[in-house]
């Protein structure tokens, strides 16, 4: 089929409104595709509510409505479903209504979408003829009143939840009503146009702010189904020609048929469950996304992804679709205030600011829920304008950008057989003529400039009329631009204008410097197309008129470079500004942000957009030119001496150019052609048979060095073991050679069923008190790093194994008695320490709106507990390991001093904390974490152990000289109890303090390592699944609403603890634990373990064991009894090991849970807490243990009062 019939309208050519005018504003809705499960769960809730209402059970209705309101406001809260760690398994099919909506957009027929909506409502017990639907429509103005009058103050009032939900139901009912009933549709539409035309309808929508704009957009999307048109709201360029501009008005329908676009991110295609192999055939840069390419693109410093707006750059964004329609007309002026209102609404929506933000969220949520989407973020594009004296919008004669320059002059003309190339609009050809750009440079099913045809993505239908879109939100610092010009050319307006023109390569009115270097020419309406009809190499080869480094010259070098010129590096720009009116002349700011929503289509992001951005914009050597530095306008400059620009004919550069344009977000999108969209809507997965794949899909990358504990292997074993009828033990032979004396040589038996894992980890002994499974390897490791000592974790009850039951009993007793000695106020003291730290941290980070969740909340808190409650602050010096480890060295003396200066090594804020942290991590990594017994860890961990113990000895020595006060802190309690314990155990003070020293090391180590790392994992899980903590915490602090059927357990009433357990179930700190098998045994599952082998419990798998006694519906994040969801038995959770075998974690209830819960509550006070895009958002780790997790938020809530 011809290209024009496939390419989405607005992509190939500039979009136009109903009156034929060029589109001067647009909306970009960044959406997430809801999983079918989520939609069903919403419908289930609705069903419950409807049933309760029909049976007049007000109590039940209140409850159901309250739950529903939470779910509507925070979609993820109730419905989070997890993908098993490391698995690609799809457990989240996209909502069918999303696909139906897509279908409706492509093919105007309400049958499919309508039937589905009917069925959904019937499932929920609402007949489609029910009053809710009818009411929404009749009388026609009613619906509008709902939007206008929907009483905001009632939203927070859960006592009015039923009324709230009913109101929302009426809003939501508009969508099915408009789809199902043409007459109702017309009525509803009529309320917008009020008998006028498209301009009036648009104005009504705009005047109503975001809710009405969105409703009007939805109606516009549905409209083609009720009109007699073969083309949907999403149509091809060719179809757009058949839908003639202005035509609609003459029919008196009064609506704007301007088409909409849709495009998907890689995660979006993945959410639509496109075949994995086909997904793999998409280009690497698209799969990585823009945030991951930040360093390459020069998005650093203020432009770095960690500073981007909202969710832009995060993989929760599945795609965007556009909106925009004619507003007002020649006789119908539009107030600037209306646009301001829409801008304010969009901002409130994005930031969830105040009650307005909350209201907008919930209204858009219900409107789009039935289309299977959640709108995560909105961008509003507007051509810059001026405001007239009467407050109405005054348009400029031509399009400007916010620095005041004429924009959008030059575009590569792509031949779609829909017209001829304008001068300058293609590739320079002979005799100053212009050849159209080969369509394959933009579209994936066409020959490119070399006549080559694309072969990827691998499925041909996906290429038909498709292209890749680059979206970048670029903020323009107009004030900085003006100030820089003024600083370089003080007091001389002409000189400032001229320097700006040199930067841009054109004068403000668009005249190229090639044509007129000294002053702008007035070309009027430019009837001859002279604005764009010039060449560089031919007309101005040495940049004597237009500087070599100017923006226009480097962004589109025309005829420069005869080898690999502009021909292969084209982008089709579809940008639109944002921010509304121009900053008034001479002003240095008005508090508003302005800039450009840069949108460009190209067929190869890497060769086209990225090459232009990296080499032409941000490097000075290309196409035979050298020394061009960076683009003065959009380059990654930072105000330094090398950030410079040479004006034409000048041998001396202006320097110190700052960054005038700051990236505020962006991503790469795939924009499918109409046929591909249609197939997507039909649920096509675009699978390609192996025989059709290049080289049958094989590649050299298939082979990899086998590793025993890699995630793929563990996941594979777990899948088999968890399957019904699968083996319950998978036994692996170690590769040879196998010396008999090597303790590592025996087989490794993997287990993963929860009952088996609990059995093995419980460390129960046999009736003769003989050990069955042993932690002898912990004992060996701890003994090595402590020169012959043991910790609790490396001791075990019973005979055999490590044979240190006596020591275990002794350590236990000393610890318990000393803790008791601290007195009954130990918990209030603990809480006061935690609170004090958390409040201080929140006050400190609050104004910065960014936080390292792990360090700022957990690490500083546990360190303060170690200091104050344990009495064991870290040293006032930094362990050299902190400096040498990043260089994989054990000692600083091994490092050349210049290495440290080269990496700008900074002394940490708190050397005591950092030192304890490094020691603790190394100690645990070796004693518990080193499941492969790798040798490299031994040196650093032994050094850490030795420094640690020496330091603790010095603390003990000091404490022994202090007056006895057993309640002061744990260390002083140990000292105070020296006498009774030496007597009790009949050993010397030296032996006693050897025990104390190990206890302290273990306690301090667990605090410094495990708690922050676990909190990091919890937060990664919650942020990853978009679980709104700020919303969850009050629910979890409240009364449980959904009783457990199997009776209460210890943590039933503790909602926050539930959250800790459930989050770590999905993403736990330890993926495996190992034991040495001392006795032959049969596992509860029937599997057998053999004496002498090693058993490895795959905790990550046992935590998703779907068996009825384990975790049924395992991928469901369940907070029952506080939220609906499957029941979880608390003794199934493995966070603190298995319970009941006398090996219960000592610090669990005393310390760990207390700290974790408070940290979670603190994180819940951070409004709009979210991940940070790009590499800066990755957790920081030492020896694979999390010590940092950056996040952003918009404000700090007061402390919870429950």
């Amino acid at each position: 089929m011809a290209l024009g019939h496939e390419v989405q309208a607005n992509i190939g050519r500039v979009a136009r409104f109903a009156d034929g005018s060029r589109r001067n504003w647009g909306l970009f809705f960044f959406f997430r595709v809801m999983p079918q499960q989520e939609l069903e769960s919403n419908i289930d809730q609705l069903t419950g509510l409807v049933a309760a209402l029909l049976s007049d059970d007000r109590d039940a209705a209140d409850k159901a409505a309250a739950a529903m309101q939470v779910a509507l406001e925070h979609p993820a809260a109730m419905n989070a479903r997890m993908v098993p760690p490391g698995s690609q398994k799809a457990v989240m099919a996209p909502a069918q209504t999303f696909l139906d909506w897509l279908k409706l957009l492509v093919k105007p027929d309400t049958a499919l979408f309508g039937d589905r909506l009917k069925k959904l409502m019937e499932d929920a017990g609402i007949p489609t003829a029910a009053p809710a639907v009818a009411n929404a429509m009749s009388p026609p103005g009613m619906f509008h009143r709902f939007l206008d009058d929907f009483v905001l103050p009632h939203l927070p009032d859960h006592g009015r939840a039923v009324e709230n939900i009913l109101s929302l139901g009426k809003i939501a009912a508009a969508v099915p009503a408009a789809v199902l009933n043409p007459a109702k549709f017309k009525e509803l539409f009529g309320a917008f146009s009020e008998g006028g035309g498209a301009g009036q309808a648009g104005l009504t929508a705009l005047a109503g702010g975001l809710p009405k704009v969105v409703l009007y957009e939805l109606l516009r999307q549905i409209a083609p189904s009720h009109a007699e048109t073969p083309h949907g709201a999403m149509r091809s360029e060719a179809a757009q020609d058949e839908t003639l501009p202005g035509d609609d008005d003459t029919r008196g329908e009064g609506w704007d048929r301007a088409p909409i676009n849709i495009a998907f991110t890689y995660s979006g295609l993945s959410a639509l469950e496109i075949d994995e192999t086909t997904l793999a055939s998409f280009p690497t840069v698209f799969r990585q996304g823009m945030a991951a390419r930040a360093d390459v693109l020069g998005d650093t410093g203020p432009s770095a992804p960690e500073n981007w707006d909202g969710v832009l750059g995060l993989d929760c964004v599945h795609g965007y679709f556009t909106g925009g329609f004619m507003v007002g007309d020649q006789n119908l002026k539009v107030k600037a205030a209306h646009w301001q209102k829409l801008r304010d609404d969009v901002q409130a929506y994005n930031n969830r600011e105040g009650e307005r933000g909350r209201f907008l969220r919930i209204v858009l949520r219900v409107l789009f829920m039935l289309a299977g989407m959640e709108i995560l973020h909105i961008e509003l594009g507007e051509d810059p304008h001026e405001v007239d004296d009467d407050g109405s919008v005054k348009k400029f004669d031509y399009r400007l950008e916010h620095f005041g320059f004429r924009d959008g002059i030059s575009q590569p003309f792509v031949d779609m057989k829909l017209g001829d190339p304008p001068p300058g609009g293609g590739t320079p050809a002979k005799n100053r003529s212009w050849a159209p750009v080969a369509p394959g440079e933009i579209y994936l099913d066409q020959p490119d400039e070399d006549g080559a045809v694309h072969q990827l993505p691998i499925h041909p239908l996906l290429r038909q009329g498709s292209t890749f879109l680059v979206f970048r939100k670029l903020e323009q610092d107009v004030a900085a631009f003006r100030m820089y010009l003024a600083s370089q050319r003080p007091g001389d307006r002409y000189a400032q204008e001229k320097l700006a023109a040199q930067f841009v390569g054109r004068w403000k009115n668009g005249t190229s410097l090639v044509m007129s270097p000294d002053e702008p020419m007035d070309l009027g309406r430019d009837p001859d197309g002279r604005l764009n009809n010039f060449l560089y190499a031919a007309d101005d080869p040495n940049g004597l008129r237009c500087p070599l480094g100017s923006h226009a010259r480097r962004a589109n070098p025309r005829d420069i470079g005869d080898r690999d010129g502009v021909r292969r590096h084209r982008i089709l720009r579809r940008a639109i500004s944002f921010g509304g009116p121009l900053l008034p002349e001479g002003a240095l700011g008005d508090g508003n942000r302005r800039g450009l929503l840069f949108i460009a289509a190209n067929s190869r992001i890497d060769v086209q957009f990225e090459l232009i951005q990296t080499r032409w914009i941000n490097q000075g050597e290309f196409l035979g030119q050298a020394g061009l530095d960076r683009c003065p306008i959009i380059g990654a400059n930072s105000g330094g001496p090398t950030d410079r620009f040479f004006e034409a004919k000048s041998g001396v550069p202006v320097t110190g150019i700052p960054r005038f344009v700051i990236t505020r977000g962006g991503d790469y999108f795939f924009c499918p052609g109409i046929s591909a969209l249609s197939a997507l809507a039909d649920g096509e997965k675009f699978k390609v048979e192996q025989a059709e794949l290049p080289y049958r899909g094989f590649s050299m990358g298939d082979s990899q060095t086998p590793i025993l504990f890699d995630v793929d292997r563990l996941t594979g074993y777990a899948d088999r073991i968890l399957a019904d009828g699968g083996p319950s033990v998978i036994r692996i032979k170690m590769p040879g050679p196998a010396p008999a004396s090597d303790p590592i040589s025996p087989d490794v038996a993997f287990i993963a069923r929860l009952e088996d894992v609990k059995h093995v980890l419980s460390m129960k002994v046999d009736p003769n008190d003989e050990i069955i499974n042993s932690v002898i390897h912990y004992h060996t490791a701890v003994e090595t790093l402590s020169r012959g000592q043991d910790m609790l974790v490396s001791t075990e009850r019973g005979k055999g194994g490590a044979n240190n039951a006596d020591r275990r009993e002794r350590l236990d007793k000393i610890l318990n008695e000393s803790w008791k000695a601290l007195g009954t106020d130990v918990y209030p003291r603990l809480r006061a320490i935690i609170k004090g730290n958390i409040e201080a941290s929140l006050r400190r980070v609050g104004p910065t709106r960014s936080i390292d969740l792990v360090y700022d909340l957990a690490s500083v808190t546990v360190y303060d507990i170690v200091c104050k409650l344990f009495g064991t602050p870290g040293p006032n010096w930094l362990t050299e390991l902190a400096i040498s480890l990043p260089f994989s060295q054990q000692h600083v003396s091994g490092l050349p001093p210049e290495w440290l200066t080269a990496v700008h090594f900074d002394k940490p804020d708190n050397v005591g904390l950092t030192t304890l942290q490094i020691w603790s991590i190394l100690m645990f990594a070796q004693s518990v974490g080193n499941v492969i017994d790798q040798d490299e860890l031994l040196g650093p961990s032994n050094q850490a152990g030795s420094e640690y113990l020496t330091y603790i000895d010095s603390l003990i020595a000091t404490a022994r000289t202090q007056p006895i006060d057993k309640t002061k802190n744990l260390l002083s309690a140990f000292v105070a109890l020296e006498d009774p314990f030496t007597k009790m155990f009949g050993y010397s003070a030296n032996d006693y303090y050897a025990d104390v020293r190990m206890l302290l090391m273990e306690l301090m180590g667990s605090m410094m390592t495990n708690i922050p790392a676990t909190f990091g994992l919890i937060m990664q899980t919650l942020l990853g699944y978009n679980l709104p903590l700020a919303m969850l915490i009050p629910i979890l602090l409240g009364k449980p609403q959904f009783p457990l059927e199997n009776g209460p357990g210890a943590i039933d009433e503790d909602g926050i603890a539930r959250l800790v357990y459930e989050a770590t179930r999905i993403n736990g700190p330890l993926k495996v634990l190992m034991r040495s098998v001392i006795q032959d045994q049969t596992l509860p599952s029937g599997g057998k373990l053999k004496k002498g082998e090693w058993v490895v419990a795959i905790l990550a798998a046992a935590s998703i064991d779907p068996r009825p006694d384990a975790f049924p519906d395992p991928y469901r994040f369940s907070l029952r009894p506080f939220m609906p969801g499957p029941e979880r038995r608390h003794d199934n959770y493995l966070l603190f090991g298995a319970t009941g075998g006398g090996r219960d974690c000592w610090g669990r209830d005393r310390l760990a849970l207390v700290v974790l819960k408070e940290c979670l509550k603190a994180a819940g006070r951070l409004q709009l807490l979210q991940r940070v895009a790009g590499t800066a958002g990755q957790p920081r780790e030492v020896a694979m243990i999390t010590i940092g997790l950056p996040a952003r938020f918009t404000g700090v809530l007061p402390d919870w009062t429950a």
Partner: protein
Amino acid sequence: MKQAELNWIDSKMVGQVSEIAVLAPIKRGRIPGERRTYEERLQFLINNLQGRAVQGLPTELDKVLTIHFGRMIIIRPEQYLLYSDVPGVAYHDNPVSPDKKVPKLIDEYREADDGKPPNPLLRSWVLTLVEFDGDLRAYFKDIAQFLGSLFDQIFVNCEDFPGTSKFEEFWQWIRRYQVSSNLFYPHYRDLSVVRIKQLQDFKRRFDDFVARVRSPTGRKVERIDELFDEFLRESQQYGENFPGPGGVFEAGK
């Protein structure tokens, strides 16, 4: 075919730049006392170096001032056995071209009693490719002197490796496993690493100088002669620390 003895390969040298390619067999099986193979350890060490390079942390490699580029590639049996037909190797079916057999992945961690024949005796290899300034022997003298312990850590996972401390044995090991680069193409044949860094530094100093003495608006500095002399003194020759002993070319000195 006759096979000569000590048929060692000579490095190719173009201008002042040389290459070396060493293809060394990795030890088979598991390291005693550890749950990993020699190949895993080798990969771990290489990954660690790569990680530091990506993060911009200096590595031991910086200490050898003559290295332009270096690469290490682990080559697995599944890769070199592509389109082979070796008894004992399991292959994917290929109904279309039966002579183009693709080996199935070979797992060192076999399930006990899986009833399948033992893995064929095949090895992985590590291919090390370096482009450097000057002569091969001088290069390896540098390696032994500045890089010894890292080099030993890495290549101890290969067969026959004698260690760098005994230079003659080390030299023979290198020659034993050196392979011929059929093509060696340097884009700049006369520029050493240090020279490139010096030119870069010179340009930076020059730009600084221009910014000090000239303004785009035409303002000029009066002491230009003095400043020019100062610039010349500073930018012509460097007496020390270019680079320092750790191999870092410090900017701004």
